[in-house]
């Protein structure tokens, strides 16, 4: 049976242009820019000084507090600058700029391609390794993974869900990773299950990736307790709450976390990173990035060192097309436009999407005609048109009562709106203000 989340959702054209392109390692750039805040939570504290030489895998940013993450050097070379540099957030953040010299790795890292399936470490050690290796959620939200691998007191996890849905159009990085590194991903999943003390696991993959489904079904046929589920192609199937609902039928309560219903969801990219960190001592210093676009010469999947400028990726994919109107960090639905091609790839960069000029502009906004399309597509059961109006009129108490904070910012409402209203823009504004109000209450 094909499972899916029951409420809302849209069907944007899939456009998985790079689905058949194998992951290719990108040559080392001349310099890398590594922001010290690539995750949700407190920025890491810088450990190196200007002029220091660093090796690949060396810690250059120490995590501060529990919800934070370590930052490692992704190249070897000399630290030339520690300064505020523009990154994919659209603002300047404190970053370490390293000039690349050779490719010298720290000794602890096991660089052999050999699969290491045996799990020898204890629960605590797995979590510790995850924290030290700077693993964050690689689906785009960049929430530190060790936090999600620690079960809070009084709660119990009974499922680990591996998110291989990749419902964003264009992006194929998770898809390629599942096909090429399926075994590693599965070991990573087992590590996460061990850390959480969970016996049962599920892997959710959208039906438009039949090769990945077949591959995992084959891999899991000998596994006890891990099942693979094909999912209906519908956006946002890969949303954490939607995936849980689709696979387990459980609904995460408003304002709650998946652990409240006994489920923990990790992305396939994260599972792969956990495998490398725990079994191979390799911190998170590279990731798979899809570079794609309708007019791009060769849409590709690259294995990229963190901190590589986006311009290098575009160059490797055939260069920036002349009619480029917009560049997006991430997918077309949830991604964010970049305002420079020099921004670095960070831990959360799953794709770079190049959009031609004629498609990049917003259409003129018309008044709301109360067609309720946005209500029908909202996967969280909210009323986007109302939330937008309330946020615009600054009636933030009511937006809070109408559960604006439950919005997952999937953008389905803005996508479907026939009047091209900037629904999500205003809902984000409302969320920002409501969170401010809630913070000031405490």
């Amino acid at each position, binding site marked *: 049976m094909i499972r899916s989340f029951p409420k809302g959702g849209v069907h944007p054209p899939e456009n998985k242009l790079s689905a058949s392109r194998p992951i290719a390692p990108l040559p080392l750039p001349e310099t890398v820019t590594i922001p010290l805040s690539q995750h949700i939570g407190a920025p890491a504290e810088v450990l190196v000084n200007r002029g220091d030489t660093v090796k690949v895998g060396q810690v250059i940013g120490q995590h501060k507090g529990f919800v934070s993450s370590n930052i490692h050097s992704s190249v070897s070379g000399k630290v030339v600058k520690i300064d505020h540099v523009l990154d994919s957030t659209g603002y300047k953040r404190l970053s370490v700029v390293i000039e690349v010299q050779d490719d010298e790795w720290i000794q602890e890292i096991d660089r052999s391609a050999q699969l290491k399936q045996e799990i020898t470490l204890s629960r605590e050690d797995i979590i510790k390794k995850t924290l030290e290796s700077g693993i964050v959620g690689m689906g785009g939200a960049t929430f530190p993974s060790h936090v999600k691998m620690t079960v809070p007191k009084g709660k119990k996890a009974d499922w680990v869900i591996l998110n291989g849905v990749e419902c964003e159009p264009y992006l194929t990085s998770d898809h390629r990773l599942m096909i090429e590194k399926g075994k590693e991903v599965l070991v990573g999943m087992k590590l996460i299950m061990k850390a959480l003390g969970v016996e049962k696991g599920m892997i959710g993959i959208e039906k438009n990736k039949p090769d990945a489904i077949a591959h995992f079904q084959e891999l899991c046929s000998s596994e006890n307790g891990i099942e693979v589920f094909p999912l209906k192609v519908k956006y946002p199937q890969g949303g954490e709450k939607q995936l849980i609902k689709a696979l387990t039928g459980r609904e995460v309560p408003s304002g709650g976390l998946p652990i409240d219903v006994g489920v923990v969801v990790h992305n396939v990219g994260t599972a792969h990173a956990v495998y490398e960190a725990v079994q191979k001592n390799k911190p998170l210093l590279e990731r798979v990035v899809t570079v794609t676009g309708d007019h791009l010469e060769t849409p590709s999947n690259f294995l990229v060192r963190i901190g590589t400028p986006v311009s290098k990726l575009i160059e490797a994919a055939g260069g920036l097309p002349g009619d480029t109107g917009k560049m997006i960090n991430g997918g077309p639905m949830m991604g964010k436009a970049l305002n420079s091609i020099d921004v670095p790839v960070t831990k959360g960069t799953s794709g770079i999407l190049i959009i031609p000029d004629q498609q990049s502009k917003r259409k003129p906004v018309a008044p709301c005609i109360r067609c309720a399309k946005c209500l029908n597509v909202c996967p969280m059961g909210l009323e986007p048109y109302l939330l937008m109006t309330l946020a615009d009129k600054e009636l933030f108490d009511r937006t809070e009562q109408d559960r604006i904070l439950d919005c997952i910012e999937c953008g389905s409402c803005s996508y479907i709106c026939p009047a091209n209203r900037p629904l999500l823009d205003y809902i984000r*504004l409302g969320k920002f203000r409501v969170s401010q109000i809630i913070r000031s209450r405490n």
Partner: protein
Amino acid sequence: MNSLLLFTIITLSALGLVASLILYFVAQKFKVYEDPRIDEVEDVLPSANCGGCGFPGCRNFAEALVKADTLDDLFCPVGGNETMATVAQILGKEAVETEPKVAVLRCSGSFENRPRTNIYDGAKNCTIVHNLYTGDTDCQYGCLGLGECVDACDFDAMYMDESTGLPVIIDAQCVACGACVEACPRDIIELRQRNKKDRKIYVSCINEDKGGLAKKYCAVACIGCTKCFKVCPFEAITMANNLAYIDAELCRLCRKCAPECPTNSILELNFPPRKVKEETKTEVEKSE
């Protein structure tokens, strides 16, 4: 027939009497005493309910005034010293003179001065843009030009200048209620002392980037060269984060700093034209 009429009149009157007695005693019992001076003070206040005093409305402010021991921290920017003197008279308290203020925009990043590096076509709201990215220029501190401050102004003291993309504050109308200061997500607008004849000298930039970058992003950015800091005879200028700031309380409007500025980021407004240097004269006229 007659007796029925009589019976009705008597019972209804009796009921009315009982009810009125109950109402009377309840009213006595739960009487709320309200200082009559609150009404008096409220009448004097401008009834703009702008929130410039820090209270939700004029009534709340009047209550606070009556309750307060001294009028030290309470000030109605709209009514100004005159209103506060009347209030003080009603309450029999000492009025505290406060220097009148006016809002100033600390950004000169017009279309001409600050090149646009990308196109923003999303929702026309400064806070939304501010939460998203640097804006359609490279300066992450400067004005976004979507007029949230203008919308916030209740006194028609602001308008958007279409030719520069910056809001303009009409000094004569501005009451320094602070609504625009609150509304601006980038904290560009500041309330500064309203000097004689609305004369003002201030650094019209809040960019904290290093000089070279700031200059690249905007032709009239403060580059933190400290020239004005060195020339100021009254120590009114402080330097912090590659940025000069003129303290309005210490500044004596001597105008020595403005011609020193290599990027013309120090504005001097409403002064008579300079006599000596022809160049700066045109500057003054332009800014007026």
